[in-house]
């Protein structure tokens, strides 16, 4: 054994950011990961930065001002980028070189414009910049970014309607012509302003109409590398059913069908339909295997429509008009890409609560539809206390009421970086409510921090994905 080597390694270990070879804070692979912290000067952000540095990560921080106060607040080896989240170009330079983003910035003033800029537009800018950066990287190696969405269909011309078949059908086995049956009709065509429109009416009881196409994906792409669909549509508030058919192409009688419901808003919207939402039509069939999907169908049926949910005087729920813009597939992945700290709102004054929640929700939705792996953490009212002391409750039901310390939220963000159970989940988190004797709550399961402190994976694995 080289004598000098051991002593040198010792010194290196001591001075090295990550500390001694085996220390409580070592995270494998941290040195190869660069994390962008947006909101590094906030209460949570400061602790997040410290925790990342302790574990040996490379940290980049986006700050608005580069003055001495800010520099003193952040550890020396943090790379500081000066800019504003509302400005796409500064976000671009901040995101470059980063593998992950922790977004804990929030508007500091009560001005609505600020709320929109930081909690809504800022999140959009970051997700766009992140996707752009990965696309750039992919281009430079003549490949495809693993984080970009796959375009399945873009409806821009008559040519794109090729392959789409309009069909009629009925849920009733026997159809007796009835004199009260006013018929069913539907068509898929390009409108005057160049949009693809699927419209019609279904007055037949138990009837439905649908457009269907056998999918032709680009060479080498298969749907098992994707998590679900993103559809950009103008649905007029109606709901539609998406049906996927799987099975051997040669023998369609062997096909299995899976369905999921898609709700649309008045006007245009982007709807995310994860594969996990699909259920087999025949309950005996196995769960959906995206690799085997060959046909996509969008169906309209009047029986499940909510009355009065429409606009422009079309109050009859048996009419529909679906303007289709595109269908894309959302990529899957192991880990989360962006962690967003949102809020439950219970700590905000009632006069401002609605505004803040609206902006936050818009930011959350933008992140969910971006195609990136996301984790949305909604803490209860923040407290300035040391973390790791009290049991935490993770829930998805909007039921939590207790507060939580900034340090605990920071810990969750850092732990979620490499946790596969954290990908594509939104959840609330707060302290366990210590109730009086005899008054115990049995519903919510609290997770106590222990020495190993791996509370996050078990807590998140029971929560619903793609929320």
């Amino acid at each position, binding site marked *: 054994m080289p*004598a000098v080597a051991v002593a040198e390694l010792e010194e290196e270990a001591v001075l090295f950011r990550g500390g001694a070879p*085996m220390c409580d804070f070592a995270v494998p692979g941290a040195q190869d990961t660069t994390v962008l912290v947006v909101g590094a000067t906030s209460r949570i952000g400061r602790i997040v930065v410290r925790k990342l540095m302790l574990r040996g990560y490379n940290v980049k921080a986006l700050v608005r001002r580069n003055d001495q106060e800010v520099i003193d607040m952040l*550890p*020396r080896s943090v790379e500081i980028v000066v800019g504003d989240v509302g400005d796409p170009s500064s976000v671009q330079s901040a995101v470059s070189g980063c593998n992950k983003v922790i977004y804990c910035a929030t508007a*500091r003033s009560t001005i609505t414009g600020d709320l929109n800029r930081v909690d809504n537009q800022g999140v959009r800018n970051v997700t766009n910049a992140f996707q752009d950066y990965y696309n750039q990287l992919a281009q430079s190696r003549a490949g495809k970014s693993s984080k970009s969405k796959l375009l399945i269909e873009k409806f821009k011309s008559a040519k794109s309607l090729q392959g789409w078949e309009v069909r009629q059908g009925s849920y009733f086995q026997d159809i007796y012509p009835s004199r009260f049956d006013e018929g069913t009709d539907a068509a898929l065509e390009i409108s005057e302003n160049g949009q693809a429109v699927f419209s019609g009416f279904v007055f037949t009881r138990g009837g439905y109409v649908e457009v269907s196409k056998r999918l032709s994906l680009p060479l080498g792409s298969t749907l098992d590398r994707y998590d679900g669909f993103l559809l950009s549509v103008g649905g007029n508030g109606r709901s539609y059913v998406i049906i996927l058919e799987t099975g051997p192409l040669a023998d369609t009688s062997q096909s299995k069908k899976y369905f999921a419901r898609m709700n649309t808003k008045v006007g245009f919207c982007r709807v995310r339909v994860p594969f996990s939402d699909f259920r087999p039509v025949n309950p005996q069939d196995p769960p959906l295997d995206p690799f085997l999907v060959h046909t996509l169908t969008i169906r309209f049926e009047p029986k499940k429509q909510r009355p009065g949910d429409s606009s422009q005087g079309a109050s009859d729920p048996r009419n529909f008009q679906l303007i289709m813009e595109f269908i894309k597939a959302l990529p899957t992945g192991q880990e989360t890409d962006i962690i967003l700290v949102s809020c439950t709102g219970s700590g905000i004054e009632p006069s401002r609560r609605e505004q803040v929640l609206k902006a936050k929700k818009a930011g959350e939705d933008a992140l969910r539809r971006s195609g990136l792996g996301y984790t949305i953490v909604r803490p209860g009212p923040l407290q300035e206390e040391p973390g790791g002391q009290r049991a935490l409750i993770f829930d998805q039901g909007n039921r939590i009421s207790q507060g939580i310390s900034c340090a605990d939220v920071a810990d969750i963000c850092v732990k979620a970086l490499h946790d596969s159970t954290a990908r594509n989940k939104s959840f609330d988190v707060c302290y366990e409510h210590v109730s009086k004797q005899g008054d115990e709550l049995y519903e919510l399961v609290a997770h106590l921090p222990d020495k190993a402190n791996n509370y996050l994976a078990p807590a998140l694995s029971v929560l619903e994905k793609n929320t």
Partner: protein
Amino acid sequence: MEVIKTVVPTSIAQGTPVRPTSILVVGATGTLGRQVVRRALDEGYDVRCLVRPRPAPADFLRDWGATVVNADLSKPETIPATLVGIHTVIDCATGRPEEPIRTVDWEGKVALIQCAKAMGIQKYVFYSIHNCDKHPEVPLMEIKHCTEKFIQDTGLDYTIIRLCGFMQGLIGQYAVPILEEKSVWGTDAPTRIAYMDTQDVARLTFIAMRNEKASRKLLTFAGPRAWTTQEVITLCERLAGQDANVTTVPVAVLRFTRQLTRFFQWTNDVADRLAFSEVLSSDTIFSAPMNDTYQLLGVESKDILTLEKYLQDYFTNILKKLKDLKAQSKQTDIFF
């Protein structure tokens, strides 16, 4: 904006209230000090480190996110400024081996404690040595004991933690020489020391700090098992996969050397250190029962790291790194 929990003003002086999460760590660059700093930063405290002005400052503290202030315990006038806005002081400092004990460990500490009292520090955590009250003949132990009494008399809210020994120290003393195939100094003394991982000490310290039951108490932290020097060497040999080159110094020789060095002023400090090792020879078991302490703090004994696991992790890591180094150096061999 969120409504934060109101900070109760706890400082008597005028001005901004003191945040309960602000800590001053004295001796932050030491083996124990740096673990205390890391633990505190990870738990969300605002950490300020008191270090002596140096030409090459210890930047790793700033890298972790702590603020660093310059002061010197041997110059009391530098102390008060470091205590402004601080809620808790954690004192891990001790003099370096080449310096006389009295300046830092007694006079410096007295100054620090008096300042802390005058400036209204809410909590003072002090690290002492196990059984320091039983060995007045060892200067360091005597000083630690007197400091304990001094703290208790000031009326400060304190927690005093007596320690038995650090596992980290064994690396330099035994593990490295074994790996480097150098001599290992051992004694034939039957002493058993209950070593503890400094990371566990730090973790338990913070649990104690927040526990009201530990207020104004003297706690002892001892590792899960007490080891003799011979046992430690055997363990290292087994894990390193090679034999140690042990030179055993009989205790009698140690004692003689100590008497000798006492005659010379400049070696007085060495004499003091040697006296320490005599203690270790006389106290057959340097350990303490931990069940009551674990119960008080709400900690389970299985969560405390054992020496076997500690050294196992160390050797696994270091041997892997050395293998990688060797592999790397092989690649750079160029033959013409």
